[in-house]
Protein backbone atom coordinates (compact mmCIF):
# COMPACT_ATOMS: atom_id res chain seq x y z
CA UNK A 1 0.00 0.00 0.00
CA UNK A 2 2.67 2.41 1.11
CA UNK A 3 4.85 1.37 -1.79
CA UNK A 4 2.04 1.83 -4.26
CA UNK A 5 1.33 5.33 -2.95
CA UNK A 6 4.95 6.24 -3.17
CA UNK A 7 5.03 4.89 -6.75
CA UNK A 8 1.98 6.91 -7.71
CA UNK A 9 3.48 9.97 -6.06
CA UNK A 10 6.70 9.45 -7.97
CA UNK A 11 4.77 9.14 -11.23
CA UNK A 12 2.74 12.25 -10.43
CA UNK A 13 5.93 13.97 -9.46
CA UNK A 14 7.79 13.19 -12.66
CA UNK A 15 4.72 14.16 -14.68
CA UNK A 16 4.69 17.40 -12.78
CA UNK A 17 8.39 17.95 -13.45
CA UNK A 18 7.84 17.08 -17.10
CA UNK A 19 4.96 19.57 -17.34
CA UNK A 20 6.87 22.38 -15.72
CA UNK A 21 9.90 21.62 -17.87
CA UNK A 22 7.75 21.83 -20.97
CA UNK A 23 6.17 25.03 -19.68
CA UNK A 24 9.65 26.40 -19.12
CA UNK A 25 10.67 25.44 -22.66
CA UNK A 26 7.57 27.08 -24.14
CA UNK A 27 8.21 30.19 -22.13
CA UNK A 28 11.78 30.18 -23.36
CA UNK A 29 10.69 29.76 -26.97
CA UNK A 30 8.19 32.62 -26.63
CA UNK A 31 10.90 34.69 -25.00
CA UNK A 32 13.28 34.08 -27.91
CA UNK A 33 10.57 34.82 -30.47
CA UNK A 34 9.70 38.04 -28.64
CA UNK A 35 13.36 38.99 -28.52
CA UNK A 36 13.89 38.48 -32.26
CA UNK A 37 10.65 40.23 -33.09
CA UNK A 38 11.55 43.25 -31.00
CA UNK A 39 15.15 43.29 -32.28
CA UNK A 40 14.04 43.24 -35.92
CA UNK A 41 11.32 45.80 -35.23
CA UNK A 42 13.67 48.28 -33.62
CA UNK A 43 16.34 47.77 -36.29
CA UNK A 44 13.72 48.58 -38.95
CA UNK A 45 12.42 51.61 -37.08
CA UNK A 46 15.96 52.93 -36.63
CA UNK A 47 17.11 52.30 -40.19
CA UNK A 48 13.96 53.08 -42.23
CA UNK A 49 14.91 56.67 -43.22
CA UNK A 50 18.36 55.45 -44.30
CA UNK A 51 16.97 52.50 -46.24
CA UNK A 52 14.60 54.76 -48.09
CA UNK A 53 17.38 57.32 -48.48
CA UNK A 54 19.60 54.74 -50.17
CA UNK A 55 16.84 53.80 -52.61
CA UNK A 56 16.11 57.49 -53.25
CA UNK A 57 19.76 58.29 -53.99
CA UNK A 58 19.74 56.04 -57.07
CA UNK A 59 16.36 57.04 -58.50
CA UNK A 60 15.67 58.88 -61.74
CA UNK A 61 13.78 62.16 -61.30
CA UNK A 62 10.84 60.80 -63.29
CA UNK A 63 10.64 57.81 -60.96
CA UNK A 64 11.06 59.80 -57.74
CA UNK A 65 8.71 62.67 -58.45
CA UNK A 66 5.63 60.61 -59.21
CA UNK A 67 3.49 60.25 -56.13
CA UNK A 68 1.71 57.19 -57.56
CA UNK A 69 4.95 55.16 -57.85
CA UNK A 70 5.84 52.68 -55.13
CA UNK A 71 8.57 54.63 -53.26
CA UNK A 72 10.37 51.48 -52.07
CA UNK A 73 11.18 49.93 -55.47
CA UNK A 74 12.83 51.10 -58.66
CA UNK A 75 10.05 51.77 -61.16
CA UNK A 76 12.69 52.93 -63.65
CA UNK A 77 16.27 51.66 -63.84
CA UNK A 78 18.51 52.96 -61.05
CA UNK A 79 21.01 55.68 -61.91
CA UNK A 80 24.27 56.82 -60.34
CA UNK A 81 24.16 60.32 -61.79
CA UNK A 82 22.92 62.03 -58.62
CA UNK A 83 25.68 60.48 -56.56
CA UNK A 84 28.31 61.68 -59.03
CA UNK A 85 26.56 65.10 -59.12
CA UNK A 86 27.34 65.29 -55.40
CA UNK A 87 31.05 64.99 -56.12
CA UNK A 88 31.31 66.98 -59.33
CA UNK A 89 28.74 69.77 -59.04
CA UNK A 90 28.50 70.48 -55.32
CA UNK A 91 31.02 71.40 -52.63
CA UNK A 92 30.50 68.11 -50.78
CA UNK A 93 34.19 67.23 -51.08
CA UNK A 94 35.16 70.65 -49.66
CA UNK A 95 32.79 70.09 -46.71
CA UNK A 96 34.28 66.64 -46.11
CA UNK A 97 37.86 67.98 -46.26
CA UNK A 98 36.95 70.85 -43.90
CA UNK A 99 35.37 68.41 -41.45
CA UNK A 100 38.46 66.18 -41.44
CA UNK A 101 40.80 69.16 -41.08
CA UNK A 102 38.84 70.65 -38.17
CA UNK A 103 38.47 67.20 -36.59
CA UNK A 104 42.20 66.54 -36.80
CA UNK A 105 43.18 69.80 -35.10
CA UNK A 106 40.40 69.52 -32.51
CA UNK A 107 41.64 66.02 -31.67
CA UNK A 108 45.23 67.22 -31.34
CA UNK A 109 44.29 70.21 -29.19
CA UNK A 110 42.01 68.08 -27.00
CA UNK A 111 44.73 65.52 -26.35
CA UNK A 112 47.41 68.14 -25.69
CA UNK A 113 45.23 69.82 -23.05
CA UNK A 114 43.14 66.88 -21.86
CA UNK A 115 45.73 64.15 -21.32
CA UNK A 116 47.84 66.03 -18.74
CA UNK A 117 44.67 67.24 -17.00
CA UNK A 118 43.29 63.71 -16.80
CA UNK A 119 46.61 62.38 -15.50
CA UNK A 120 46.72 65.11 -12.90
CA UNK A 121 43.22 64.25 -11.69
CA UNK A 122 43.66 60.48 -11.88
CA UNK A 123 47.12 60.05 -10.38
CA UNK A 124 48.74 63.05 -8.78
CA UNK A 125 47.74 63.81 -5.24
CA UNK A 126 46.01 67.07 -4.98
CA UNK A 127 43.36 68.55 -2.79
CA UNK A 128 40.06 69.21 -4.61
CA UNK A 129 40.90 66.78 -7.42
CA UNK A 130 37.60 64.93 -6.93
CA UNK A 131 35.55 68.12 -6.95
CA UNK A 132 37.51 69.46 -9.94
CA UNK A 133 36.84 66.27 -11.88
CA UNK A 134 33.11 66.68 -11.35
CA UNK A 135 33.29 70.40 -12.17
CA UNK A 136 35.07 69.71 -15.46
CA UNK A 137 32.41 67.19 -16.34
CA UNK A 138 29.59 69.62 -15.62
CA UNK A 139 31.10 72.04 -18.10
CA UNK A 140 29.89 69.54 -20.69
CA UNK A 141 26.33 70.23 -19.59
CA UNK A 142 26.61 73.94 -20.44
CA UNK A 143 24.90 73.78 -23.81
CA UNK A 144 26.01 75.51 -27.03
CA UNK A 145 22.56 77.10 -27.21
CA UNK A 146 23.39 79.12 -24.08
CA UNK A 147 26.80 80.22 -25.35
CA UNK A 148 26.57 80.64 -29.12
CA UNK A 149 25.39 84.25 -28.95
CA UNK A 150 28.22 85.55 -26.78
CA UNK A 151 30.73 83.26 -28.53
CA UNK A 152 29.72 84.81 -31.84
CA UNK A 153 31.05 88.10 -30.41
CA UNK A 154 34.15 86.41 -28.98
CA UNK A 155 34.88 84.80 -32.36
CA UNK A 156 34.39 88.15 -34.11
CA UNK A 157 36.75 89.89 -31.66
CA UNK A 158 39.37 87.18 -32.28
CA UNK A 159 38.92 87.80 -36.01
CA UNK A 160 37.98 84.16 -36.68
CA UNK A 161 34.45 84.54 -38.04
CA UNK A 162 33.74 82.75 -41.35
CA UNK A 163 36.91 80.68 -40.92
CA UNK A 164 37.30 77.02 -39.93
CA UNK A 165 39.63 78.28 -37.18
CA UNK A 166 36.61 79.49 -35.21
CA UNK A 167 35.47 75.87 -34.91
CA UNK A 168 38.99 74.59 -34.20
CA UNK A 169 39.22 76.98 -31.24
CA UNK A 170 35.68 76.54 -29.89
CA UNK A 171 35.04 72.78 -30.29
CA UNK A 172 37.63 71.81 -27.64
CA UNK A 173 35.37 73.51 -25.06
CA UNK A 174 33.09 70.52 -25.65
CA UNK A 175 35.66 67.79 -26.27
CA UNK A 176 38.06 68.61 -23.42
CA UNK A 177 35.59 68.03 -20.55
CA UNK A 178 34.31 64.77 -22.01
CA UNK A 179 37.79 63.53 -22.88
CA UNK A 180 39.21 64.32 -19.47
CA UNK A 181 36.40 62.32 -17.95
CA UNK A 182 36.88 59.39 -20.36
CA UNK A 183 40.68 59.43 -19.95
CA UNK A 184 40.50 59.41 -16.13
CA UNK A 185 38.81 56.02 -16.43
CA UNK A 186 41.48 54.68 -18.80
CA UNK A 187 44.40 56.06 -16.78
CA UNK A 188 43.10 54.61 -13.52
CA UNK A 189 43.09 51.17 -15.17
CA UNK A 190 46.89 51.34 -15.77
CA UNK A 191 48.72 49.69 -12.86
CA UNK A 192 50.61 52.20 -10.72
CA UNK A 193 53.53 49.75 -10.37
CA UNK A 194 54.61 50.37 -13.96
CA UNK A 195 55.23 54.07 -13.41
CA UNK A 196 56.76 53.50 -10.01
CA UNK A 197 59.16 50.93 -11.45
CA UNK A 198 60.12 53.38 -14.21
CA UNK A 199 60.75 56.06 -11.60
CA UNK A 200 62.91 53.69 -9.58
CA UNK A 201 64.83 53.03 -12.80
CA UNK A 202 65.65 56.74 -13.01
CA UNK A 203 62.76 58.27 -14.97
CA UNK A 204 61.26 61.45 -13.59
CA UNK A 205 57.50 61.63 -13.03
CA UNK A 206 57.24 63.66 -16.25
CA UNK A 207 59.18 61.21 -18.43
CA UNK A 208 57.33 58.29 -16.85
CA UNK A 209 54.09 59.98 -17.94
CA UNK A 210 55.39 60.60 -21.47
CA UNK A 211 57.15 57.27 -22.08
CA UNK A 212 55.14 54.76 -20.01
CA UNK A 213 51.65 56.10 -19.37
CA UNK A 214 50.81 57.65 -22.74
CA UNK A 215 51.59 54.52 -24.81
CA UNK A 216 49.52 52.42 -22.39
CA UNK A 217 46.62 54.86 -22.61
CA UNK A 218 46.45 54.39 -26.40
CA UNK A 219 42.93 52.88 -26.40
CA UNK A 220 41.69 55.93 -24.49
CA UNK A 221 43.51 58.22 -26.90
CA UNK A 222 41.87 56.47 -29.85
CA UNK A 223 38.47 56.95 -28.18
CA UNK A 224 39.18 60.67 -27.75
CA UNK A 225 40.24 61.04 -31.39
CA UNK A 226 37.07 59.32 -32.60
CA UNK A 227 35.01 61.50 -30.31
CA UNK A 228 36.67 64.68 -31.63
CA UNK A 229 36.01 63.68 -35.24
CA UNK A 230 32.39 62.67 -34.63
CA UNK A 231 31.69 65.86 -32.69
CA UNK A 232 33.08 67.91 -35.58
CA UNK A 233 30.87 66.03 -38.01
CA UNK A 234 27.82 66.31 -35.70
CA UNK A 235 28.00 69.85 -34.37
CA UNK A 236 25.43 72.15 -35.90
CA UNK A 237 24.69 75.30 -33.90
CA UNK A 238 28.18 76.81 -33.58
CA UNK A 239 28.97 76.06 -37.21
CA UNK A 240 25.69 77.64 -38.31
CA UNK A 241 26.29 80.73 -36.17
CA UNK A 242 29.98 81.30 -36.98
CA UNK A 243 30.34 80.40 -40.65
CA UNK A 244 28.56 81.61 -43.76
CA UNK A 245 30.92 81.26 -46.78
CA UNK A 246 30.52 77.96 -48.62
CA UNK A 247 34.23 77.15 -48.75
CA UNK A 248 34.57 77.15 -44.93
CA UNK A 249 31.50 74.99 -44.14
CA UNK A 250 31.65 71.57 -42.54
CA UNK A 251 29.50 68.58 -43.57
CA UNK A 252 26.86 69.20 -40.97
CA UNK A 253 25.90 72.70 -42.14
CA UNK A 254 27.17 72.47 -45.71
CA UNK A 255 24.86 69.66 -46.78
CA UNK A 256 21.54 71.07 -45.52
CA UNK A 257 22.30 74.69 -46.49
CA UNK A 258 24.00 74.26 -49.88
CA UNK A 259 22.10 71.27 -51.26
CA UNK A 260 18.80 72.94 -50.51
CA UNK A 261 18.66 76.13 -52.58
CA UNK A 262 15.54 78.04 -51.70
CA UNK A 263 12.73 75.74 -52.68
CA UNK A 264 14.94 73.46 -54.76
CA UNK A 265 15.89 70.28 -52.92
CA UNK A 266 18.49 68.00 -54.50
CA UNK A 267 16.85 65.04 -52.79
CA UNK A 268 18.86 62.20 -54.33
CA UNK A 269 22.19 63.90 -53.70
CA UNK A 270 21.10 64.93 -50.19
CA UNK A 271 20.26 61.32 -49.31
CA UNK A 272 23.52 60.08 -50.84
CA UNK A 273 25.45 62.59 -48.71
CA UNK A 274 23.61 61.47 -45.55
CA UNK A 275 24.40 57.78 -46.19
CA UNK A 276 28.02 58.43 -47.19
CA UNK A 277 28.63 60.22 -43.88
CA UNK A 278 26.43 58.07 -41.63
CA UNK A 279 27.90 54.66 -42.48
CA UNK A 280 31.62 55.28 -41.75
CA UNK A 281 30.83 57.08 -38.48
CA UNK A 282 28.52 54.24 -37.42
CA UNK A 283 31.32 51.72 -38.10
CA UNK A 284 33.80 53.68 -35.98
CA UNK A 285 31.26 53.94 -33.17
CA UNK A 286 30.45 50.24 -33.20
CA UNK A 287 34.12 49.33 -32.99
CA UNK A 288 34.55 51.57 -29.96
CA UNK A 289 31.20 50.99 -28.25
CA UNK A 290 32.64 48.58 -25.71
CA UNK A 291 35.40 51.02 -24.80
CA UNK A 292 32.94 53.88 -24.40
CA UNK A 293 30.83 51.77 -22.04
CA UNK A 294 33.86 50.84 -19.93
CA UNK A 295 35.02 54.45 -19.93
CA UNK A 296 31.59 55.62 -18.87
CA UNK A 297 31.17 53.17 -16.00
CA UNK A 298 34.73 53.64 -14.77
CA UNK A 299 34.48 57.39 -14.88
CA UNK A 300 31.03 57.51 -13.33
CA UNK A 301 30.88 54.72 -10.79
CA UNK A 302 34.43 54.49 -9.60
CA UNK A 303 35.41 58.10 -10.30
Amino acid at each position, binding site marked *: MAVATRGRLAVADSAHVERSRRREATRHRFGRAGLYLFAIGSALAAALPFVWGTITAFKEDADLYNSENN*PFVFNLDPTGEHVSFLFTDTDFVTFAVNTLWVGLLVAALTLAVGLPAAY*SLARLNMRWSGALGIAIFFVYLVPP*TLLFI*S*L*TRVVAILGLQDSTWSLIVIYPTITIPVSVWLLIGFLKAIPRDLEEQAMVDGYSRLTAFLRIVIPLALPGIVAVVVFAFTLTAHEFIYALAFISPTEAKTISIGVPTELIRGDVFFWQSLQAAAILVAVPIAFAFNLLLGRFITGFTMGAVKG
Partner: protein
Amino acid sequence: MTPLQHGRRRLADRESVLAPLFLLPAVVYIIALVGFPLLLALAFAFSDVTVGNPSFDWVGFDNFQAIFDDSVFWRSLRNTLIFTVISMALTVVLAKALAMILIADFRFKWVVRFLVLLPWTTPVALSAVAWLWMLDSVYSPIDWVLRSLGFIESNVYWLGKDTLAMASVIAVHTWRIVPLAAVIILAGLISIPDDIKDAAEVDGAGFWRKLWEITIPLTLPVIAVATLFGAVLTFTDMSVVYILTRGGPENATQVLPSYAFLKGIGSGDLAQGAAIALFLFPLLLAAAVAILRSVKKMETF
Protein backbone atom coordinates in the same frame (compact mmCIF):
# COMPACT_ATOMS: atom_id res chain seq x y z
CA MET B 1 74.90 64.73 -12.92
CA THR B 2 75.25 68.50 -13.06
CA PRO B 3 73.39 70.54 -10.44
CA LEU B 4 71.18 72.06 -13.13
CA GLN B 5 70.00 68.68 -14.40
CA HIS B 6 69.48 67.61 -10.85
CA GLY B 7 67.34 70.64 -10.16
CA ARG B 8 65.28 70.09 -13.28
CA ARG B 9 64.71 66.48 -12.39
CA ARG B 10 63.58 67.38 -8.93
CA LEU B 11 61.10 69.83 -10.44
CA ALA B 12 59.78 67.23 -12.87
CA ASP B 13 59.27 64.90 -9.91
CA ARG B 14 57.48 67.17 -7.53
CA GLU B 15 53.79 66.38 -7.58
CA SER B 16 52.83 69.62 -5.88
CA VAL B 17 54.22 71.43 -8.94
CA LEU B 18 53.27 68.95 -11.65
CA ALA B 19 49.66 68.41 -10.60
CA PRO B 20 48.50 72.04 -10.97
CA LEU B 21 50.77 72.55 -13.99
CA PHE B 22 49.16 69.62 -15.82
CA LEU B 23 45.70 70.87 -14.97
CA LEU B 24 46.34 74.52 -15.82
CA PRO B 25 45.84 74.49 -19.62
CA ALA B 26 42.46 72.75 -19.31
CA VAL B 27 41.28 75.11 -16.59
CA VAL B 28 42.44 78.21 -18.50
CA TYR B 29 40.79 76.97 -21.71
CA ILE B 30 37.47 76.32 -19.98
CA ILE B 31 37.48 79.60 -18.07
CA ALA B 32 38.37 81.61 -21.19
CA LEU B 33 35.92 79.99 -23.60
CA VAL B 34 33.11 78.69 -21.38
CA GLY B 35 33.20 80.68 -18.13
CA PHE B 36 33.81 84.08 -19.72
CA PRO B 37 31.24 83.64 -22.53
CA LEU B 38 28.70 82.49 -19.94
CA LEU B 39 29.17 85.75 -18.01
CA LEU B 40 29.15 87.67 -21.28
CA ALA B 41 25.81 86.04 -22.20
CA LEU B 42 24.45 87.18 -18.85
CA ALA B 43 25.74 90.72 -19.47
CA PHE B 44 24.31 90.77 -23.03
CA ALA B 45 20.86 90.03 -21.64
CA PHE B 46 20.98 93.38 -19.81
CA SER B 47 22.38 95.34 -22.76
CA ASP B 48 21.45 96.59 -26.22
CA VAL B 49 24.22 94.81 -28.14
CA THR B 50 23.37 93.97 -31.75
CA VAL B 51 25.47 92.57 -34.58
CA GLY B 52 25.38 95.95 -36.31
CA ASN B 53 26.13 97.99 -33.17
CA PRO B 54 28.27 95.91 -30.80
CA SER B 55 28.95 98.72 -28.31
CA PHE B 56 27.75 97.79 -24.84
CA ASP B 57 25.08 99.91 -23.16
CA TRP B 58 23.35 98.86 -19.98
CA VAL B 59 19.56 98.79 -20.38
CA GLY B 60 18.51 96.99 -17.20
CA PHE B 61 15.49 94.73 -17.54
CA ASP B 62 14.28 96.17 -20.86
CA ASN B 63 15.02 92.97 -22.79
CA PHE B 64 13.12 90.88 -20.28
CA GLN B 65 10.20 93.32 -20.37
CA ALA B 66 10.11 92.94 -24.16
CA ILE B 67 10.31 89.15 -23.91
CA PHE B 68 7.50 88.90 -21.37
CA ASP B 69 5.25 90.92 -23.68
CA ASP B 70 6.10 88.62 -26.59
CA SER B 71 3.54 85.86 -27.08
CA VAL B 72 5.99 83.87 -29.21
CA PHE B 73 8.34 83.64 -26.23
CA TRP B 74 5.63 82.11 -24.04
CA ARG B 75 4.71 79.74 -26.84
CA SER B 76 8.39 78.70 -27.18
CA LEU B 77 8.69 78.15 -23.44
CA ARG B 78 5.56 75.98 -23.41
CA ASN B 79 6.73 74.07 -26.50
CA THR B 80 10.13 73.46 -24.88
CA LEU B 81 8.46 71.91 -21.83
CA ILE B 82 6.05 69.79 -23.91
CA PHE B 83 8.88 68.71 -26.22
CA THR B 84 11.13 67.70 -23.31
CA VAL B 85 8.55 65.93 -21.13
CA ILE B 86 6.96 63.87 -23.90
CA SER B 87 10.19 62.87 -25.63
CA MET B 88 11.79 61.90 -22.30
CA ALA B 89 8.81 59.77 -21.25
CA LEU B 90 9.01 57.94 -24.59
CA THR B 91 12.80 57.69 -24.42
CA VAL B 92 12.89 56.03 -20.98
CA VAL B 93 10.54 53.23 -21.99
CA LEU B 94 12.04 52.63 -25.44
CA ALA B 95 15.66 52.91 -24.28
CA LYS B 96 15.11 50.44 -21.45
CA ALA B 97 13.60 47.96 -23.93
CA LEU B 98 16.42 48.55 -26.42
CA ALA B 99 19.05 48.06 -23.72
CA MET B 100 17.52 44.65 -22.89
CA ILE B 101 17.96 43.69 -26.55
CA LEU B 102 21.52 44.97 -26.74
CA ILE B 103 22.52 42.92 -23.70
CA ALA B 104 20.89 39.68 -24.93
CA ASP B 105 22.77 37.19 -27.08
CA PHE B 106 21.38 36.25 -30.46
CA ARG B 107 22.51 35.63 -34.00
CA PHE B 108 23.40 38.60 -36.23
CA LYS B 109 23.41 40.79 -33.16
CA TRP B 110 26.07 43.08 -34.65
CA VAL B 111 23.80 43.90 -37.59
CA VAL B 112 20.97 44.85 -35.25
CA ARG B 113 23.38 46.83 -33.08
CA PHE B 114 24.78 48.68 -36.10
CA LEU B 115 21.31 49.60 -37.33
CA VAL B 116 19.78 50.65 -34.01
CA LEU B 117 22.75 52.93 -33.26
CA LEU B 118 22.49 54.69 -36.65
CA PRO B 119 20.04 57.38 -35.44
CA TRP B 120 22.52 58.48 -32.79
CA THR B 121 25.77 58.11 -34.74
CA THR B 122 24.53 60.02 -37.79
CA PRO B 123 25.08 63.80 -37.63
CA VAL B 124 21.75 65.27 -36.63
CA ALA B 125 21.67 67.70 -39.57
CA LEU B 126 21.84 64.76 -41.99
CA SER B 127 19.37 62.48 -40.25
CA ALA B 128 16.95 65.41 -39.95
CA VAL B 129 17.30 65.92 -43.71
CA ALA B 130 16.51 62.22 -44.19
CA TRP B 131 13.37 62.71 -42.08
CA LEU B 132 12.45 65.88 -43.95
CA TRP B 133 12.23 63.65 -47.01
CA MET B 134 10.30 60.93 -45.11
CA LEU B 135 7.75 63.57 -44.08
CA ASP B 136 7.60 65.34 -47.46
CA SER B 137 4.21 66.88 -48.21
CA VAL B 138 3.86 65.14 -51.58
CA TYR B 139 6.29 62.21 -51.80
CA SER B 140 6.27 60.91 -48.20
CA PRO B 141 6.49 57.10 -48.28
CA ILE B 142 4.49 57.02 -45.03
CA ASP B 143 1.63 58.74 -46.80
CA TRP B 144 2.04 56.40 -49.78
CA VAL B 145 1.66 53.35 -47.52
CA LEU B 146 -1.35 54.86 -45.72
CA ARG B 147 -2.92 55.77 -49.07
CA SER B 148 -2.30 52.31 -50.49
CA LEU B 149 -3.91 50.71 -47.46
CA GLY B 150 -6.88 53.03 -47.85
CA PHE B 151 -6.49 54.76 -44.47
CA ILE B 152 -6.28 58.24 -45.96
CA GLU B 153 -7.61 59.88 -49.12
CA SER B 154 -5.09 62.69 -49.51
CA ASN B 155 -1.69 63.34 -47.97
CA VAL B 156 -1.32 64.05 -44.25
CA TYR B 157 1.02 67.05 -44.61
CA TRP B 158 2.99 66.14 -41.45
CA LEU B 159 4.95 69.35 -41.01
CA GLY B 160 2.18 71.71 -42.07
CA LYS B 161 -0.30 71.39 -39.18
CA ASP B 162 0.34 72.58 -35.62
CA THR B 163 -0.11 69.39 -33.61
CA LEU B 164 1.21 67.04 -36.29
CA ALA B 165 4.33 69.16 -36.76
CA MET B 166 5.00 69.09 -33.01
CA ALA B 167 4.38 65.34 -32.93
CA SER B 168 6.78 64.86 -35.86
CA VAL B 169 9.51 66.92 -34.21
CA ILE B 170 9.10 64.95 -30.95
CA ALA B 171 9.11 61.63 -32.81
CA VAL B 172 12.26 62.42 -34.77
CA HIS B 173 14.06 63.70 -31.69
CA THR B 174 13.08 60.64 -29.64
CA TRP B 175 14.19 58.38 -32.51
CA ARG B 176 17.59 60.06 -32.31
CA ILE B 177 18.05 60.10 -28.50
CA VAL B 178 16.89 56.53 -27.68
CA PRO B 179 20.10 54.74 -28.80
CA LEU B 180 22.26 57.00 -26.60
CA ALA B 181 20.03 56.47 -23.57
CA ALA B 182 20.00 52.72 -24.30
CA VAL B 183 23.81 52.59 -24.34
CA ILE B 184 24.00 54.40 -20.98
CA ILE B 185 21.43 52.02 -19.47
CA LEU B 186 23.32 49.10 -21.02
CA ALA B 187 26.40 50.20 -19.08
CA GLY B 188 24.27 50.05 -15.93
CA LEU B 189 22.85 46.61 -16.77
CA ILE B 190 26.34 45.21 -17.35
CA SER B 191 27.39 46.38 -13.90
CA ILE B 192 24.69 44.29 -12.12
CA PRO B 193 26.65 41.59 -10.24
CA ASP B 194 26.29 38.11 -11.75
CA ASP B 195 25.48 36.43 -8.43
CA ILE B 196 22.27 38.45 -8.11
CA LYS B 197 21.20 37.37 -11.59
CA ASP B 198 22.15 33.73 -10.81
CA ALA B 199 20.23 33.77 -7.53
CA ALA B 200 17.13 35.02 -9.31
CA GLU B 201 17.56 32.31 -11.95
CA VAL B 202 17.82 29.57 -9.29
CA ASP B 203 14.72 30.90 -7.54
CA GLY B 204 12.90 30.46 -10.86
CA ALA B 205 11.97 34.10 -11.23
CA GLY B 206 10.33 34.77 -14.61
CA PHE B 207 11.18 37.55 -17.05
CA TRP B 208 8.73 40.13 -15.70
CA ARG B 209 9.53 39.40 -12.03
CA LYS B 210 13.24 39.72 -12.72
CA LEU B 211 12.56 42.94 -14.62
CA TRP B 212 10.49 44.56 -11.87
CA GLU B 213 12.29 43.21 -8.81
CA ILE B 214 15.93 43.18 -9.93
CA THR B 215 16.94 45.00 -13.09
CA ILE B 216 14.72 48.08 -12.73
CA PRO B 217 15.51 48.81 -9.06
CA LEU B 218 19.23 48.17 -9.56
CA THR B 219 19.49 50.27 -12.70
CA LEU B 220 17.24 53.07 -11.50
CA PRO B 221 20.11 55.51 -10.83
CA VAL B 222 21.64 54.89 -14.24
CA ILE B 223 18.23 55.21 -15.89
CA ALA B 224 17.88 58.53 -14.05
CA VAL B 225 21.25 59.69 -15.37
CA ALA B 226 20.36 58.61 -18.92
CA THR B 227 17.03 60.44 -18.69
CA LEU B 228 18.55 63.64 -17.35
CA PHE B 229 21.26 63.55 -20.02
CA GLY B 230 18.54 63.12 -22.59
CA ALA B 231 16.54 65.97 -21.06
CA VAL B 232 19.52 68.32 -21.21
CA LEU B 233 20.18 67.30 -24.83
CA THR B 234 16.49 67.80 -25.59
CA PHE B 235 15.60 71.20 -24.18
CA THR B 236 18.88 72.72 -25.33
CA ASP B 237 18.63 71.34 -28.86
CA MET B 238 17.34 73.16 -31.90
CA SER B 239 18.80 71.16 -34.80
CA VAL B 240 15.75 68.97 -35.41
CA VAL B 241 13.34 71.89 -35.13
CA TYR B 242 15.56 74.14 -37.27
CA ILE B 243 15.85 71.68 -40.14
CA LEU B 244 12.36 70.17 -40.09
CA THR B 245 10.18 73.22 -39.50
CA ARG B 246 12.26 76.36 -38.71
CA GLY B 247 9.85 76.71 -35.78
CA GLY B 248 6.79 76.77 -38.01
CA PRO B 249 4.00 76.54 -38.91
CA GLU B 250 3.32 79.92 -37.23
CA ASN B 251 5.74 79.18 -34.35
CA ALA B 252 3.83 75.98 -33.47
CA THR B 253 7.15 74.13 -33.00
CA GLN B 254 9.27 77.10 -31.91
CA VAL B 255 11.38 76.17 -28.86
CA LEU B 256 13.55 78.43 -26.71
CA PRO B 257 16.89 77.63 -28.42
CA SER B 258 15.49 78.04 -31.94
CA TYR B 259 13.77 81.29 -30.95
CA ALA B 260 16.99 82.58 -29.39
CA PHE B 261 18.79 81.70 -32.63
CA LEU B 262 16.13 83.41 -34.73
CA LYS B 263 16.38 86.61 -32.66
CA GLY B 264 20.10 86.58 -31.90
CA ILE B 265 21.65 85.43 -35.17
CA GLY B 266 18.73 85.63 -37.60
CA SER B 267 17.76 89.23 -36.84
CA GLY B 268 21.11 90.13 -35.24
CA ASP B 269 19.64 91.20 -31.89
CA LEU B 270 22.29 89.59 -29.70
CA ALA B 271 20.87 91.10 -26.50
CA GLN B 272 17.35 89.72 -26.94
CA GLY B 273 18.69 86.36 -28.09
CA ALA B 274 20.90 86.13 -25.01
CA ALA B 275 17.99 87.04 -22.74
CA ILE B 276 15.82 84.28 -24.27
CA ALA B 277 18.59 81.68 -24.03
CA LEU B 278 19.07 82.62 -20.39
CA PHE B 279 15.75 80.96 -19.56
CA LEU B 280 17.42 77.62 -20.26
CA PHE B 281 19.62 78.16 -17.24
CA PRO B 282 17.20 77.29 -14.38
CA LEU B 283 16.20 74.11 -16.22
CA LEU B 284 19.85 73.26 -16.68
CA LEU B 285 20.74 73.86 -13.06
CA ALA B 286 17.91 71.61 -11.88
CA ALA B 287 19.07 68.84 -14.23
CA ALA B 288 22.71 69.20 -13.09
CA VAL B 289 21.76 68.88 -9.41
CA ALA B 290 19.59 65.86 -10.16
CA ILE B 291 22.39 64.16 -12.14
CA LEU B 292 24.85 64.74 -9.31
CA ARG B 293 22.44 63.11 -6.86
CA SER B 294 21.90 60.07 -9.08
CA VAL B 295 25.64 59.61 -9.55
CA LYS B 296 26.11 59.78 -5.77
CA LYS B 297 23.48 57.07 -5.41
CA MET B 298 25.32 54.89 -7.96
CA GLU B 299 28.50 55.18 -5.96
CA THR B 300 26.84 53.72 -2.86
CA PHE B 301 26.41 50.34 -4.55
